[in-house]
């Protein structure tokens, strides 16, 4: 019997994944020995994220394919790895005081965030459908558990169960779509699928098209686009606030990166068939997200609906399917990370133990008591709406120009119209903060770590808005 040939293994391109996995396990093991005080775990996790971000730069001549074309280190994946590390670090920082206040003493919390980041990095760097599936599953399972980590809170349990059941259901669609595409092209590698499509023989194969539709359903659920968004408000509301912020940024960015790779990069030739579906998804997400947000009285549900609307804008970048589209996707997600962590940071600060003050009317008169907090919240919300000169405006601007370059004028007009609608509910919160009398005494503990996150987010939102040049140049590289 001849021996089995050794596989080609390129550990250097896997470096961020390896670093994060090792640190994730280290957090688990350390947790056994340190007793009640979990601050050492925070330190280890942050070190891991920093080292992962640095190690993602290990490859120079991008793009590098490895593992028989299952894994790629290219510009998109490195940039996204940085976004993941930043957003996970912010999530951990914002959790420190929150977990202490709410009595979440689970050490696995931090290792789950690290493992979730592993999944996100894999997702953004995969060029094989099996890898994309595994990445999505790692991310999702971590999120199911994180959403339900407050086990004595029924809302948290509800969020976890709903998310889990619907997520498992959506995974079925995703996997079925992948199986059909594998069936028609004979490969799970995106490069080979792209080649087959370019040749043209499988272009009008009905099974291929059905696979594409099922993939859109699966991905659409994972990024919470209409009509697969029904889970988002409940899960966002029920999950602990830092987890909500975490799942609104990193996992969404990772899934969108994979979405972009599978659709815009692999099958641009059959874009008439999937483009129209994504077009409908995008328009529906924007309208239903924004109109749904107007009716909300809970700030977390409001931000959940607004994130549905933001997915609508982000899908435009995939529909545009050009290089400007991928660059604008990167920039948008970076800007979105800062805005979301800033806004949720303030939401965390306003709450206290036993009373999270999540109703919008609880924000009445915040400007009199804590003018700086109110001002920061205003900046984050207006940036989410897309007011110049804040980060959200520049991000939207680049997405829209990517779409205009491909001639999607109507889509851009609808998106701009939606940005205008979104100001209604963002400004509603601002009006409450500045123009209403407080309905009850604010009892805010200004916890330093959360304030630090808000400060970073504020800096990011303003800096990306006023000096977007260097980051845009990096994204377009």
């Amino acid at each position: 019997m001849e021996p089995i040939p050794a596989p080609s293994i390129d550990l250097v391109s896997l470096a961020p994944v390896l670093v994060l996995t090792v640190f994730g396990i280290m957090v688990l093991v350390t947790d056994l020995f340190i007793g009640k005080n979990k601050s050492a775990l925070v330190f280890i996790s942050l070190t891991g994220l920093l080292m992962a971000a640095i190690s993602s730069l290990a490859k120079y001549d991008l793009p590098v394919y490895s593992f028989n074309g299952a894994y790629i280190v290219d510009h998109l994946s490195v940039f996204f790895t940085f976004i993941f590390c930043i957003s996970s670090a912010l999530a951990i920082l914002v959790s420190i005081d929150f977990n202490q206040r709410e009595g979440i003493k689970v050490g696995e919390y931090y290792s789950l965030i690290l493992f979730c980041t592993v999944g996100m990095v894999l997702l953004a760097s995969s060029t094989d459908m099996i890898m994309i599936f595994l990445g999505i599953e790692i991310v999702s399972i971590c999120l199911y558990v994180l959403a339900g980590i407050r086990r004595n809170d029924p809302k948290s349990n509800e969020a976890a169960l709903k998310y889990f059941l619907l997520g498992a259901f959506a995974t079925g669609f995703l996997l079925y779509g992948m199986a059909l595409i594998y069936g028609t092209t004979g490969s799970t590698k995106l490069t080979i699928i792209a080649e087959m499509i370019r040749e043209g023989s499988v272009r009008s194969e009905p099974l291929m098209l059905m696979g594409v539709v099922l993939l859109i359903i699966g991905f659409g659920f994972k990024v919470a686009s209409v009509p697969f968004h029904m889970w988002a408000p409940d899960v966002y509301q029920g999950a602990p606030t830092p987890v909500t912020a975490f799942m609104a940024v990193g996992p969404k960015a990772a899934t969108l990166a994979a979405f972009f790779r599978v659709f815009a990069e692999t099958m641009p030739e059959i874009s008439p068939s999937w483009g129209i579906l994504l077009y409908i998804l995008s328009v529906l997400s924007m309208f239903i997200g924004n109109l749904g947000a107007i009716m909300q009285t809970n700030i977390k549900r409001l931000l959940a609906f607004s994130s549905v609307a933001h997915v609508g804008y982000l899908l435009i970048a995939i529909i545009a399917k050009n290089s400007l589209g991928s660059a604008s996707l990167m920039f948008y997600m970076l800007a979105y990370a800062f805005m979301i962590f800033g806004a949720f940071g303030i939401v965390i600060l306003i709450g206290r133990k036993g009373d999270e003050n999540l109703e919008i009317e609880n924000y009445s008169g915040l400007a009199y008591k804590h003018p700086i907090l109110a001002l920061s919240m205003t900046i984050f919300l207006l940036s989410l709406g897309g007011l110049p000169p804040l980060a959200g405006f520049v991000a939207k601007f680049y997405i829209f120009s990517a779409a205009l370059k491909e001639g999607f004028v109507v889509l851009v007009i609808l998106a701009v119209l939606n940005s205008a609608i979104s100001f209604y509910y963002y400004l509603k919160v601002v009006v409450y903060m500045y123009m209403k009398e407080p309905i009850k005494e604010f009892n805010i503990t200004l916890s330093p770590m959360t304030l630090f996150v808000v400060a970073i987010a504020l800096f990011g939102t303003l800096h990306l808005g006023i000096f977007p040049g260097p980051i845009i140049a990096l994204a377009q590289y």
Partner: protein
Amino acid sequence: MELLIFYPLAGLCVIFALGVVFNKNPIGSAMSLIAMMLGLAGIFVLQQAHFIAILQIIIYAGAIMVLFMFVIMLLNLKGDDAVWKKREKNTLLTVLTGLLIAGVLYKVLEITSAGEFDSPAHVLETFGTVREVGTILFTEFVLPFEVASILLLVAMIGAVVLAKSKVD
């Protein structure tokens, strides 16, 4: 010849799958599921995938079904369907959903019957053997194979976090 074996097997699979749905008794449902899995394993053998067939029996019909049985017996589910009667029946909705699904099925049938399936796939001599599956797992798919272990680790941590007895 192949079809002579395939159709009875496939028919049994469908019958037992229906049994899973229509059986009032949860244990009966689970038993039908096992029978369905065995039928599927037979179909795998027919496709020259012996290794997958064995795995199907060991993992699904064996391990996973034992787990199902444990859960059913621990929860002490009885045959009565009192739990399921809480929701009011909505005939209009039922009919509409049925029509929708019938429409989807019809479309699927139309699409799949239009596709060309008569050319048999080109398959190597060694296809489906343990050695071949192992070689592919450790060469071409070594990364997914290893990443799957992270996935399992995460699932395990998650299960422990959510299910451990002390709530803190």
